[in-house]
């Protein structure tokens, strides 16, 4: 894989890295629970015929500033800032896991900031019938084991890259966990459901059939039900919560098909 280009934007005075690759229609990507420590095969697939722009959320690898964000509204505002600074305002947006939670909120609260929406197992909902497990009441390393099937992809991503200071790398990863906890703790309902009716964007909801964090039998339907805009759903076999890590080709194919479909393009 050729490496993506890298630039920096400022959100609340903090530097946030933006990775970019490919040419074609623009699509944004907000990463999940571990952030984007490295460019992924899924993004490379999309980059074949899209310009993929992946900004890092505050606190996640490549970005600081999570300590300024106390409430969900602060996170949503920061995500809007990030989207605008990265050149994604009004563009199609993919949000995975934690990134999906914020992508959905942005689509609900600032519809013009987003084109079409792709949600890959977004966090933020809570169903008593299938409670979200407590992500951080686990033994060390256990959460990462449960995030996806492709541990052979995830673990190398989490290892310090060649030449990186191992202490600083560990700090970046623990910072990402802290940022995730800052937004999500204690993993109950963030109120997204109350606002889903405001999501008018044509939306693709993808889930992995082996998601151990958000039950695929419960959450996709619940999410789809709340969204006002036209919704497509699919469940990918052999994929866990970080479904784009587990099934990059199938996930990218589903996303590209959705984005290529002229009928889903939002009216100008």
């Amino acid at each position, binding site marked *: 894989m050729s490496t993506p280009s890298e630039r920096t934007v400022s959100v609340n005075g903090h530097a946030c890295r933006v990775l970019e690759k490919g040419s074609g229609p623009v699509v944004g990507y907000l990463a999940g629970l571990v952030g984007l420590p490295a460019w992924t095969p899924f993004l490379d697939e999309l980059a074949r015929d899209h310009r993929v722009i992946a900004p890092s959320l505050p606190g996640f690898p490549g970005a600081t500033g*999570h*300590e300024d964000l*106390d409430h969900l509204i602060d996170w949503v505002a920061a995500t809007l800032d990030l989207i605008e600074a990265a050149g994604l305002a009004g563009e199609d947006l993919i949000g995975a896991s934690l990134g999906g939670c914020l992508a959905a909120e942005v689509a609900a609260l600032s519809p013009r900031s987003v084109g079409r929406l792709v949600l890959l197992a977004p966090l933020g909902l809570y169903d008593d019938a299938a409670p979200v497990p407590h992500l*951080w*009441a*686990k*033994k*060390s390393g256990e959460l990462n084991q449960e995030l996806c099937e492709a541990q052979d992809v995830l673990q190398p991503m989490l290892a310090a890259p060649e030449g990186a200071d191992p*202490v600083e790398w*560990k*700090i970046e990863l*623990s*910072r990402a*966990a*802290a*940022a*995730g*906890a*800052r937004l999500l*703790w*204690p993993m109950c309902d963030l109120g997204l459901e109350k606002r889903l009716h405001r999501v008018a964007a044509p939306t693709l909801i993808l889930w992995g059939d082996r998601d151990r964090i958000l039950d695929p039998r419960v959450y996709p339907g619940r999410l789809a039900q709340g969204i006002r805009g036209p919704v497509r759903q699919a469940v990918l076999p052999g994929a866990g919560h970080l479904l784009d890590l587990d099934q990059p080709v199938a996930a990218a194919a589903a996303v590209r098909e959705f984005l290529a479909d002229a009928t889903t393009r939002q009216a100008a």
Partner: protein
Amino acid sequence: MKFLWFHLMPYMGLPENFTEKYRSVWVDIDRGLFDPVEAHRMYNDFLDEMEFAAEVGFDAVCVNEHHANAYGMMPSPNIMAATMARRTKDAAICVLGNSLALYNPPIRVAEEMALLDLISGGRLIAGFPVGSPMDTCYAYSQNPNMVRDRYYEAHDLIMKAWQADGPFDWNGRFNKMRNVNVWQRPVQEPHPPVWIPGGGSVETWEWCARRDYLYSYLSYFGYKMGRKTMAGYWEKVKEVGKDPNPFRAGFLQFVGVAETREEAIKLYREPAEYFYNRCLHVDPRFTGPPGYLSETSIRANLGSQVAAAANAAQDRYAGVLATAANTMEGFLEKGYMVIGSPDEVAAQLREMAVELNVGNLMVLLHYGNMKKDVANYNTQMFAEKVAPQLRGLFEDKWENHWWPKPLAAAERAYPQPFLEAAE
């Protein structure tokens, strides 16, 4: 030197196979393990033990706060302190303390502590721990990223509430309030002495030193493990330009006194092993929520063995997890407990107090599944044969500014005797 009688109030009926069969003593401990009738008896025995300690002359009795925890059964230390306020006469009442981030709004702490000071006639020590991850983040679902910040804001609000001239508004980051008016002021002016039971963070040491709060290190692992922490504290005190007054510091120590060391080992073996094995069966799933430790602390832990050892105080359970001593012989070898004849105990405590430079010593004389008669024996032996040997330590050179200043005897009100007693 001052001696405080510290109770944890552990559940004494955890089964022998507790560590094999059950995952955790804290947070998600099995509800089936709790027997209300047994607990009724335990709580009353514990309170008897504390009152006895006060009667035989301990300078203070201490309570603390834990939630969903079988080794410390006081989710409300203020309730325990309230009964002490009525059932003790002269002993100070050390609430060590209210875990500030868990009180909403924080002025409840100001109010309840004021009540304790008022009812007791000015005998309260106001302790403010940050609170362990287990209590704050898991039992009470506080966001680990915010616990410390909430704590500092709560502290500021409480201190203002005690000293304000009139009602005030508080437009804080976490607390937004109008007309704050904690009308009941403590007896002690400007406020009761503030004690901070802390871990090993440099920030806490500096904060205590600057504000002239007492810093106490509550270690279950004895003073060998406490050395680095206390040395770090005293270095900060010096840096900040304050005097090395030993009464600026507190330390917790397990003690077992009998006529001879052999007798003491025999008498206190079972409760000690119960405590270190069953009580400290803490599940590592709950000890390190992301965001609880500052990046500075994490960096220190990663970067240096020495810093990591010092920061073991941040997670006091690191001691038992790392050392795995689980018999009395092990506890003694590693220095967790001070066990022996009165003279042996006094000598060891003197050495500890001098080396750590601590003038306020909290002693754990009840621990594990210790029965009341044994606890009272330990208490009486300590009060009669150990404390007198050490009382004068530091007193000639230093004044204890961190001790309550109660009303004079003539101004005090005492509970009326029960009618039966009067007849």
